[in-house]
């Protein structure tokens, strides 16, 4: 376990030694932004919209007291979305999609000797392959989280009005009332940290794959599991530290 942590930190350190030209990283990072960010838009949009809708309906179903004004439903939806659902839930979904993709891609490159080929050419394979993935993730995942938060609130709005739980005016009032501005940077800080964790842990699992196709599958699964555990641990730590 300790050895694996050490290996992970050494790998992270190796990303910044024997680097290639800036132009190379720029091109690769743009590719990764498209691969990680743009290609994940649909799944993030679907998940976020439904999560927002479900949160709104379930909150409405539980707030049955006539003493609680209806706009509180929107306030609760907003708080849950910004603090937890948009950053954490989106990143758990992305750990499954992006994390497994990174791990299986690097794992396949490892077992088919493509990583060795890079090393023999005198290229720092870790830096060339992993750094653009991490940069691509920390650029696009906070953007996805922002989109997710917006769509989640929109989903809540549509569901709230469609079910008659509250009016459009009440919903708008609810999401504006007692708004804590820090929740937005907090969600983005979480997104940055989670983006780094998902990409680096998955890359580590894939990069050190040994064996064949079966082990690539195992690396991919381990990448998702470890990323999710790390997300939850850091979710707790960030909440404890920043709120």
């Amino acid at each position, binding site marked *: 376990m300790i050895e694996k942590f050490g290996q992970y930190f050494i790998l992270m350190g190796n990303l910044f*030694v024997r680097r290639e030209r800036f132009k190379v990283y720029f091109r690769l990072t743009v590719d990764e932004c498209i691969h990680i960010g743009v290609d994940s838009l649909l799944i993030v949009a679907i998940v976020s919209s439904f999560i927002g809708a479900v949160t709104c309906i379930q909150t409405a179903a539980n707030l049955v007291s006539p003493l609680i004004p209806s706009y509180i439903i929107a306030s609760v939806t907003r708080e849950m979305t910004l603090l937890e659902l948009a950053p954490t839930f989106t990143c758990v979904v992305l750990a499954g999609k992006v994390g497994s993709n990174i791990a299986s891609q690097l794992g396949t490159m490892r077992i088919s*000797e*493509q990583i*060795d*080929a890079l*090393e*023999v*050419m*005198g*290229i720092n394979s870790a830096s060339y392959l992993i750094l653009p993935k991490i940069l691509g993730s920390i650029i696009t995942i906070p953007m996805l989280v922002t989109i997710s938060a917006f769509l989640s609130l929109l989903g809540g709005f549509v569901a709230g009005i469609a079910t008659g739980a509250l009016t459009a005016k009440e919903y708008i009032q609810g999401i504006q009332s007692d708004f804590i501005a820090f929740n937005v940077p907090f969600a983005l800080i979480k997104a940055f940290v989670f983006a780094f964790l998902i990409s680096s842990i998955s890359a580590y699992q894939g990069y050190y794959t040994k064996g064949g196709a079966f082990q690539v599958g195992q690396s991919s699964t381990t990448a998702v599991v470890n990323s999710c555990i790390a997300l939850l641990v850091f979710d707790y730590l960030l909440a404890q530290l920043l709120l």
Partner: protein
Amino acid sequence: MIECKNIHKSFNGKQILKNVSGVFDQGKTNLIIGASGTGKSVLLKCLVGLVQPDEGEILYDGRPFNHATNQEKQSIRREIGMLFQGGALFDSKTVEENVMFPLEMLSTMSKSEKSDRVHFCLQRVGLDHAAKRLPSEISGGMAKRVGIARAIVMNPKYLYCDEPNSGLDPQTSIRIDNLIQEITHEYEMTTVVVTHDMNSMLEIGEHIIFMFQGEKIWEGTKEVILDNKVSALQDFIFANKLIRDMKEHS
């Protein structure tokens, strides 16, 4: 010239290489032969720096390699071309892009110079027509030839080939062997080929090292290998009926 001196390597307490020494001359096709699991590939990986030997020294034209700094290693590695067993082509890149890759990453050539060089190398291995295909769209033999083109595109001084004939039919295998030998002579490279292919050994083995249980136990040329008196080497060579018959009739 590549030299390795007293190379030792163990994995999980099991000794894989035991005091292996050898000299691989420039302009020659140097073969490392031996049965599966005798340490040939580990020796090759030590030579190219993919595996760090526990003990011993590796020298490229007198320049220390395994004890060198990362920067020194990198500069030596840029003089090395390697053909991997499975080709190790980048799946997402076309044949042309695969061959172009080392130039894109490591050279300061202009775009047109790079393109000319890539097409020259592809022509040299007879694959100019397949430039736009993906690795998944070409045969195993073609993939090996693309691997050779990629290995020579930077004009390397040292060429390594790991099992260049594995998974190939005899005719393609001979074609690959001949290509390796021609390139070695043409560019005066130091070529090291790891193989257990008997045809390769008798075709291109200008200098042969035989490995057995992690040790070098015989060294010579293709002209004298059939007359060797080492029992392990005899068992290895004459396991093949064709060669056994050849020996009996000679």
